[in-house]
């Protein structure tokens, strides 16, 4: 719902008119906010998300055949991204067994319980927002704006981060670093 979205990067994508994007995100926010801006600008051709209910434009574009939408249970979506970032081929989850989510997927029984094999997701770019970054790129997130950010930061070839505050190296205590600097490629001040 646009909480923890790198708005400055989204605005820049809109300014440059980067078309034909595949967006992997929990949701497509609402018109005018976060990923909703990309949708409004007609830049998204494919979305993989758990929820699009608060953005009527996503629904309209889906119905009009302008955007392909793959709906994924939220816990499965985050685990597929985690698998992508952690070098795993996928994960086994009980979520979705016996529902429409099961269609086209392999069902695997482990110790008497059925699981769906859900494959890993990776992206060319991860666009991440953080509260605090140091100049090396160590990241520390704020409150519920953490959500998908640290998991996505692991799961893309190029990781671009916007930060509310960029502080000298050493200010963020090692125990408070959530995303380690080596995974971050570019750091951008939020304003």
């Amino acid at each position, binding site marked *: 719902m646009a909480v923890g979205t790198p708005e400055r990067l989204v605005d820049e994508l809109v300014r440059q008119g980067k078309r034909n994007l595949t967006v992997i995100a929990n949701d497509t926010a609402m018109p005018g906010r976060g990923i909703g801006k990309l949708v409004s600008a007609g830049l998204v051709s494919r979305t993989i998300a758990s929820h699009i209910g608060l953005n009527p434009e996503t629904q309209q574009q889906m119905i009009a055949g302008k955007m392909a939408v793959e709906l994924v249970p939220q816990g499965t979506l985050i685990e597929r991204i985690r698998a992508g970032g952690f070098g795993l081929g996928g994960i086994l989850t009980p979520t979705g067994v016996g529902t429409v989510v099961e269609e086209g997927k392999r069902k695997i029984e482990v110790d008497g319980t059925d699981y769906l094999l859900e494959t890993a997701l990776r992206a060319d770019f991860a666009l991440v927002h953080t509260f605090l970054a140091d100049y090396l790129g160590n990241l520390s997130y704020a409150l519920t*704006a953490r959500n998908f950010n640290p998991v996505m930061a692991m799961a893309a070839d190029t990781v671009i981060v916007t930060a509310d505050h960029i502080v000298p190296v050493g200010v963020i205590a090692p125990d408070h670093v959530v995303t380690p600097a080596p995974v971050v490629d570019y750091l951008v001040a939020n304003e």
Partner: protein
Amino acid sequence: MDAQTIIAKRIAHELREGMLVNLGIGIPTLVANHVPEGVDVFFQSENGLIGTGPIPEEGMSHPTLTDAAGQPVSALPGACTFDSAVSFGLIRGGHLDMTVLGGLQVDATGRLANWTIPGKMVPGMGGAMDLVSGAKRVVVAMQHTAKGKPKIVKQCTLPLTSLRPVDLVVTELAVIAFPDGRATLVETAPDVTVEHVVASTEAELDVPQHVPQMNL
């Protein structure tokens, strides 16, 4: 008392000290307003918060402190935040004691449909499938009928949220449980007769000899 308040108050009686509880959007959210005195529970917001508190007063909200619908919330002392992988690990991993969710249909064995009406409403399942599959106890908060049509049906015509049956359905008319996979009338709301509940329910209801009234 209006229907939503009856439902929320009755479900609040299911809360026990120390439980970790996730409330869905709509009627379920109202349960937080009726937590019995002396009972402390942890509310989880699946976007990454345990210790969710009331809606903040004007001017006290924080843009990065929201519930799963993106609405401002507060965090109580002792709250903690985490990423979505941890949040759904809590949900699927057997750490969530109870979830309260809205419902579109519940079938005679307790299976829930609550995420889509194909062709009409396709918002996506969000966290609903994980919550129903993973929570230790699943409670459905919904009106007994929709436009006069029963919502507790023989078989769901809408796509299921999970194969896992729910534990309890609370409506403005009744409390229904599913022991041994059979819809069973547990309580009726004040001034509601057993006959009225049965007539408003499409699924066959097991009715014990004595059906107590909801204690609100």
